């Protein structure tokens, strides 16, 4: 469209378009913006509107039931959250979950798989990627349910341990946050693996060979040559999986519903419980805003690191 429009305009110019009064600049600008108008309207109606509403709700005492009026309460929801031990617990668990299952777990496992698969034979590579990616393409709730069946006390993990005469575990009850971390790693590793496989493909072969000639061990080659070359991919990947993991809800809800007690109550679960189980829509939305800020902070850190790279 754009190229043909340009040629059309060019032809018009060649034939002396000056006989038509040119449109005033503002109108021309407006008309040029017209094609994006539908999407702007759609975004305003379906995205910006609800977000604006949400921000407003966070400063009110809106409830799902129990009171008909909604009053503006200023920062009350936020001061309540920061004084609420359950909220503190949720923030701690969220950080644990993000760092444990995404930054450390998915990231290193994905990198390790990608590096190992580079060296592997084709059938091994196909099989591994098929297995890893199949965990990723499952819908979140299905994955959560599978993982519940795996960790459940009468589940497959304990059946295997029983078969091997090893002591059985009851992870969903004793170490539930570890169980959901592992579940999230299992599910999300494929994404990191794909990103790193693509990035490793871009590492110039001669660089690696030169290092090999200079007598660098495989470990040193990875650490000093490969990783610095793909560092942008690392940061981008970190940012994406952090934001994905911050908002994981279905997986945890299916596996533990935030329990037992509040041992797996990460911010999204805590927010859901406050908003929809305790009917405190205003308070829940305020927590959602906090979650947004946490995500923004992570993003800012990663973006700064990327900027430093360029600078």
């Amino acid at each position: 469209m754009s190229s043909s429009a340009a040629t059309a305009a060019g032809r018009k110019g060649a034939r002396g378009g000056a006989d038509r009064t040119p449109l005033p600049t503002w109108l021309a600008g407006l008309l040029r913006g017209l094609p994006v108008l539908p999407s702007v309207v759609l975004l305003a109606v379906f995205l910006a509107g609800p977000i604006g509403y949400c921000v407003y709700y966070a400063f009110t005492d809106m409830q799902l039931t129990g009171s008909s009026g909604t009053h503006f309460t200023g920062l009350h929801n936020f001061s309540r959250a920061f004084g609420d031990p359950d909220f503190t617990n949720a923030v701690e668990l969220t950080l644990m979950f993000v760092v444990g299952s995404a930054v450390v777990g998915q990231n290193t496992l994905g990198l390790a798989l990608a590096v190992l698969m580079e060296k592997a034979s084709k059938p091994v590579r196909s099989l591994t990627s098929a297995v890893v990616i199949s965990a990723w393409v499952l819908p979140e709730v299905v994955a959560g349910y599978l993982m519940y069946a795996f960790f459940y006390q009468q589940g497959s993990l304990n059946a295997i341990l029983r078969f091997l005469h090893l002591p059985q575990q009851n992870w969903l009850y004793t170490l539930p946050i570890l169980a959901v971390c592992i579940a999230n790693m299992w599910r999300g590793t494929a994404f990191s693996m794909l990103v790193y496989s693509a990035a490793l493909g871009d590492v110039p072969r001669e660089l690696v060979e030169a290092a090999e000639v200079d007598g660098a061990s495989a470990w040193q080659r990875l650490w000093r040559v490969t990783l610095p070359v793909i560092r942008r991919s690392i940061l981008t990947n970190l940012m994406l999986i952090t934001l994905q993991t911050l908002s994981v809800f279905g997986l945890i809800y299916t596996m533990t519903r935030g329990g037992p007690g509040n041992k797996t109550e990460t911010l999204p679960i805590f927010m859901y419980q406050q908003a929809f189980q305790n009917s405190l829509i205003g308070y829940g939305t305020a927590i959602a805003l906090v979650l947004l800020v946490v995500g923004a902070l992570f993003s800012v850190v990663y973006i700064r690191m990327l900027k430093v790279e360029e600078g």
Partner: protein
Amino acid sequence: MRTRLTVATGIAVVTAVLAATASGCGSGSGGSGKTIKVVYQKQLNSSNTVQPDFLAGQVKVFEKANPGTTVKLVPVTASENDYYTKIQLMMRSPVTAPDLVYEDTATINSDVASGYLKPLDGYLSTWKDWGQYAAASKAAMKYAEDGKTYGVPDNTDTRGIWYNKTLFEKAGIAVPWQPKTWADVLTAARAVKAKVPGVTPMNLYTGTAGGEQSSMQGFEMLLYGTAAGGSSLYDAAQKKWVVGSTGFKDALDFLHTVYSEGLGPKVQTALGVNIGAQVGTEMIPQGKLAIDIDGSWMPNNWIRTGPKPWPQWQTTMGEAAMPTQDGQGKGKVSMSGGWAWSIPAKAKNADLAWKFLQSLETETASAQWNNVNATIPVRQDVAADPKYLKALPTNAFFSGLVAATYYRPGVPAYTQVSSAIQKAMESVTTGQASVDKAASTFDNDVRSAVGADHTVQGAQ
């Protein structure tokens, strides 16, 4: 030319989009002139189809009697807490509001306060059957602030102790059994634990997943049996919630004893969403549970039409009243609730909904419902009907508990206080918090939910 074409296309697209969104808002709504939408909770336990079957039959009768009308039944399959959330979200908007909705009587006040429900006084004044309803059940439907009535109850219930006589004999406990104090209940449970291996001695509902089942069968059956009795949770005279009472801690302590001594189900089973169905359709019929503090409706699991037909229940199971803490007062305690039909404020077709509701609540239909559902009637004519009293051998016993029963506080904040109770129970059950810590967390939760000026210090 091209510019104009672009403009035209742009405008066309915008118009199309706006038209689409505008029309999209009109679809999916509830009742029209001749159609009503009826929402009720379908149990998570899919084999329990008592209510769907009953309602389907009633709809057939109604549609035949009123040609041209359509009653759309909308079952919401969810746990109790999720069900309330869902119907409250539905009732918020005229687009999604049903015409008739089935609610636990404890949530009605809170939904009235939100303006979700329509007062029914206009309809009730011309409905002669309303005179048949028991005064206590009518009172539970009245909203204190405006004195109007917002629902028609279709059953009530009482709670007591179910015990397995066979297991009791094995444990060397004399049957019939009627504990006089909480300590007697624990003694019996300990005897079962010691003498009958492989059996869960007692079930006491707990935790957030069970919702109201935990608050009411699990906790309030204990709390209302403490010294403060009817004002142990809410002081109706002062209109204040009770915090910091010894009774509250005693009830939590009982719960702590049950789970820390291994007298209850495995903790993760007890905290599961499905515990209610497991107790009724698996543990009790399989003879795996000796004592169950539960509702009068339990036989609806075991009758011929129930999810787990078990004819031997009549000879195997015994019933006892829940004792008060030290046998004080009347010596026994029960809690009553029940469910009711209400018409949402934003219903499109309230008149037809009312008409259908009347047909659901005739004497014949009520009697049928109370029988299939094994609940206690709220209509006096049904309650006095010998057919009802004979329908289940336990009907007379559980109707008799009405004399010692309490109703939950009929105030909007109850739902939030109930959540706080469940949270306190869960933290004690898992051992995450001590009894004192859980009780003080509860006090803080209640203060932040209702405001400190609406709380009062309980007896120490």
